[in-house]
Each structure stands twice: as C-alpha cells, then as structure tokens.
C-alpha cells in the first residue's frame, strides 16, 4: 500500500507503515536524530528529529506516514530552530568537552551539532559533576556525556540470557546510566565495540580503543552524518 504525503511541499509516494525519518531520507531530506537506528524499533527519546506534521510538532521517528500528511522539515524556521535548541540543550546539560573526548570525530552528537549549525549553546552550561564508572573490565562509562537516548539499554543484551546490560537508575536530575559489570565482563570484544559504536556520544568507551584515527580521517570527517543518513550503503 502506498500513501501520498508532502515533505516541505514536495509530493511523495511512501509505503504505508514506514516512519517519517526513513521516508524523508529515501527522498533526500535529512532529519537529524540521535536515538533512532534504522531497522530497530524507534525509541523516541532524543526528540532531535522533531518536525511539523500538519502543523503539530512530532518526533519523526515515532510517526508512521499516513495519507495526506503535510510534513515540514526545513521549510519552517521555527522547527529548524527548535531542533537546534534541542541539540544545544544536550550540550549545556552534559559536559561535552570535544577537545578531550575519545569519541570526537566519531560522535553523532558532535556531528549533529555541525549539521544544525550550532556554534554555541543559547542555554547556560551547567557543568554538573558525574561519576565515571570503570568497574567493568572492558568498558568505561563516562557519564558526563550520556544523553539518555537508551540505545544501549534496549539494543545491547547478554548473548546467553538476553538480559539487559545497561540500565537507567534514578529519576529526574538523579538519573544516571548504569552498567551490569558482571554481564559486561561476559561481552565479546566485538560486542563491546558494537556497544561503543552504538553510543551516539562518548559515554560508552571501549577500554581498548583510543584516539585511533588521525584528525581529518575520522568517521564523520570522511563522510558527514548527513551524507551517511541519506546514503543507502551507510544506513
């Protein structure tokens, strides 16, 4: 079944059931996101993919397309600025010290900051102290950088029991990402690397991985996050 929708005034035929973010990418319109992973159930946690659907603000990854939808991504200055503000909020809430971060150049938050054109956060930088967790043999948890996207919570599981390895403890400002060190120690090196790559920021750090790629040859310098999102090969 196909439905007719418009994105920024452009008429598009889309497959029923596909979400807005995928349909837009297929038609060359980049919608930034920090929690959505193509092919996985949407989490809807980061809200960076906010767009206007028939005039209402919605997270593009959570909404399946339906007949006659009018979607505004880049045509509406308010929604463009809102997405930028959401990215800026993350930068002022955590301690995102790019110059000292192992993930710099491979960090989705950083790459998204470039895409939305952030130079500085309009919100005051908070500098909240966070405790680093290094109990696991293979993983550092740099909590300064966690944006609570919950990718790791949902998508990283113990291969034998299927149990979750990462979890979020506490509520509100006391929320923090936790790791089950026992289960984490059972993870294969490949799984550790996958978990670290899955993290859109530099929170889950593989202890065996450092500043491996030289500046200029890092992931998003070779190919930007926007190009990757729009390119079928890299999805």
């Amino acid at each position, binding site marked *: 079944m196909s439905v007719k929708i418009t994105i920024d005034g452009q008429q598009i035929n889309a497959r029923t059931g596909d979400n807005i973010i995928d349909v837009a990418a297929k038609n060359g319109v980049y919608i930034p996101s920090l929690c959505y992973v193509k092919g996985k159930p949407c989490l809807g946690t980061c809200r960076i993919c906010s767009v206007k659907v028939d005039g209402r603000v919605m997270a593009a990854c959570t909404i399946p397309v339906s007949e006659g939808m009018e979607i505004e991504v880049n045509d509406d200055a308010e929604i463009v600025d809102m997405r930028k503000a959401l990215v800026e909020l993350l930068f002022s809430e955590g301690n995102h*010290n*790019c*110059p000292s971060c192992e993930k*710099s*150049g491979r960090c989705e938050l950083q790459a998204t900051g470039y895409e939305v054109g952030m*130079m500085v956060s309009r919100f005051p930088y908070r500098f909240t102290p*966070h405790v680093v967790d290094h109990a696991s043999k293979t993983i550092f948890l740099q909590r300064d950088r966690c944006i609570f996207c919950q990718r790791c919570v949902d998508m990283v599981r113990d291969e034998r029991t299927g149990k979750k390895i990462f979890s979020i403890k506490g509520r509100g400002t006391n929320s923090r990402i936790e790791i089950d060190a026992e289960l984490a120690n059972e993870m294969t090196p490949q799984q550790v690397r996958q978990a670290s790559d899955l993290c859109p920021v530099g929170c889950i750090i593989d202890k065996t991985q450092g500043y491996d790629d030289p500046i200029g040859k890092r992931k998003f310098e070779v190919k930007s996050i926007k190009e990757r999102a729009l390119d079928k090969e890299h999805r």
Partner: protein
Amino acid sequence: MSHTNKNKILSHELPTTPLDPEIKAAREAKIPIAMIGLCGCWGCTLSFLDMDERILGLLDKVNITRSSLTDVKRIPYRCAIGFVEGGIANSENIETLEEFRENCDILISVGACAVWGGVPAMRNVVPLEECFKEAYIDSPTAVEGAKKIIPFHDDIPVITTKVMPLHEVVKIDYFIPGCPPDGDVIIKVLDDLVNGREFDLPTSMNRYD
C-alpha cells in the same frame, strides 16, 4: 585593579615618538582589528598567526593593533573587530574583557574556552576549595618543607568560582568554535566582515575540537 606598587609605569604610559603624519593618515583610513587572550592556551592566537600570507591580501584594508602578529600591549584606539581567545577564570579576565568590549564594535569569541569555558572549565565540576587544596596544599609536586599557603595578594587577580564563557560576562556578537579553530576559519570570518559580508561559518568549517 589596585596596584600596591605606586611607582610602577605601564608600557603604554611611556612617552612615544609621534607617528609620521602620512603613515598615521594611511592607518586611520583602515579598519582597526585586535585580538586578546584570556584564560586559554594561546592556541587560538596561534591560529590567528596561521592566517599566514593570506593576511597580506587584507593589509590594505585592515590595521592590526594588539594581536599575536604585533607586540602592542593595549589597543591604542577603538577597534572595529575584536577577537577574544580564552574563558573567564579571574577578576583580571573580567576587567580586560569589559574594557575590550567597550572599545570594539564587533566582538567575536574564538575557540572552545571563549565559547563555553573549554579545558579550564574542567575545574567547574570540582569545588574551588578543593582545586586550591590540590594545587597548593596537597600538591604532589610541592617543595618539601616549604610553607603551604594559598597565594593571596591585592596584585593577584581573584579566581572566579567557576570558569565562564565570555557571553556570560559581556555581549558577544559571533562565535567561532574549535580547539583551536583553523587559520582558514579565522581568515574566512575576517575576510567576510571586512568586505561587508555577513558572518557565516558553514557546516564544513564548523569544528568543536
């Protein structure tokens, strides 16, 4: 700032030879620009130097006063464009920045420290008292047997509780992130502003590290 040593003469107060009228007139016809450094590593100031020979194309339009290219200690007159490197970490930084703001038409934050605090702001997650204790009292590199004191004197600037970005102290017109931003970025911004174009830092040039 109070100076307890009243006999001190600052370099800009020394008598100078008057400038050749022709050179003076030529200078005054140009756009004066300057760059100062606050709490940073002077890496961004080096990026200003990294404009290299590209600055030559602008020299008939701009007059560089205080900067890493010159040895001018204070800006001699009002500047059209002022670049600032480094964040705010003490009372002297605040004083210098406020004076610079008053004397610049356009003020630009350059680099991570100026934009959000940068590496010096890593102390913001530790109480100031602990920072002082670590640096002066429990310092592993302290000279053995030396009296352990936290320095305090009228002539020493007072440390701020937190390292602040510049825009929390004065109005900043534009921001150039990067640690440090490349010379390419600085020449692009300068060239745009000098030639009356809008400030524009494209995605491809924007960097936070």
